[in-house]
């Protein structure tokens, strides 16, 4: 059975999710990668205003392709590289992250501490996942190219719970 959820994601919805649950997510998600995470965390540390409000939001580790104005492939990138930035974003109220691959062990503790969820989606399937993205908008750091932060409006974006709010991981 697939669980359908809409953003923003509230803690009360997140705590119900268990590892391996299949979820279809609709609403808004924000792309992020190495350099955009780094810049965002720098702004947080300098107590500057942020280009987006992270409260109850979902980030997607992804660097999309664009064919002119049309969105191209936009699948997940390896989440592990962004582990070091996660806690600062969780402190700002981030609900969940989406990506591919296993994360560092401490991310399980972070998920438990902040009642956050890590979702996996289909790695290497950027053309397939694009079909679930209805609109996109540039939010911040355009000079980073594909690493800029984009807002995606998604419909039934397919996810699997990788780490739940109790810190259980799909990898055991």
């Amino acid at each position, binding site marked *: 059975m697939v669980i359908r959820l809409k953003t923003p994601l509230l803690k009360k919805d997140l705590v119900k999710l268990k590892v391996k649950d299949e979820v279809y997510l609709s609403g808004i998600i924000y792309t992020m990668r190495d350099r955009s995470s780094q810049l965002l965390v720098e702004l947080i540390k300098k107590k500057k205003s942020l280009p987006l409000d992270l409260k109850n939001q979902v980030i997607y580790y992804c660097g*999309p*392709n664009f064919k002119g104005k049309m969105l191209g492939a936009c699948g997940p990138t390896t989440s592990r590289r962004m582990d070091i930035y996660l806690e600062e974003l969780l402190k700002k109220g981030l609900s969940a992250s989406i990506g591919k691959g296993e994360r560092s062990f401490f991310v399980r503790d972070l998920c438990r501490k902040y009642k956050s969820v890590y979702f996996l989606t*289909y*790695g*290497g*399937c950027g053309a397939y996942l694009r079909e679930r993205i209805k609109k996109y908008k540039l939010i911040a750091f355009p000079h980073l190219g594909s690493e800029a932060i984009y807002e995606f409006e998604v419909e039934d974006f397919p996810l699997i719970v990788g780490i739940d709010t109790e810190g259980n991981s799909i990898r055991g």
Partner: protein
Amino acid sequence: MKIEEIVEKLTIKANINLREDVKKILKEALRKEKNKRVKRILEVIMENARIALKKNIAICQDTGLPLVFLEVGKDINLNSSLIEKINKGVISGYKKAGFRKSTIDKHGKLSYTPKIFHIDFVNAKGLKITIFPKGFGSEAKSALKVFPPTVKKEEIDEFIIKTVKNADIDACPPYFIGIGIGGDSSFALILAKKALCEDLSKPNKDKELDKWEKNLMRKLNKLGIGIMEKKGSTVLAVRIKRFPTHIAGIPVGVNISCHALRSATVKINF
């Protein structure tokens, strides 16, 4: 057609048209798979390839470092102007198809290609060009070890197994594993990439290597890494290439490819 145009087309093909041998192997894996959730993942992977081709978009947003392999025949006058033309073709392919700028220099400047060419001179006619867009989720899991010359096969296996175990599910399984044995250390890693450019749906022509590959694949799939959860086959094919080396060592390079193993080859006769 000008060489730039040929390469432009080839570059786009490599990124949007999943290789026939890869499709064949995926189809066979799907047929054999019994677990429903794993079946679903394999179906999505195949559906992804169909959508990419139909809508003319990249199979994966990581259109990689576009590596170029050349086999230069004896009638080809290879010089820097020919290399420049090929590189121009690659860049114009990336631009035209809307592929990502994934190359970055030390100043943070983004571009399409670092212009990496691997060139062989062959005793034939014509020019064979292979475009191999290598994604970095899988490239990040590459490994090299130089063994002593008396090493046992089992010890080499152990190293390869450790490498795949370390990749876990980070490099988009199910995987294709390229292995290069011989040459010098850097050459072994290039051999491993060349192995991945071969038709993997056909067995290795070298009977001994074919046996080794099959045995390795069995061992690798016993690791139980799975694809997302710990279910399903992690490795779909192993290809080993050998090359003469120094009497004092055996370099072994491992290059992992995600399930979206991409490359395209053209042979041009002038």
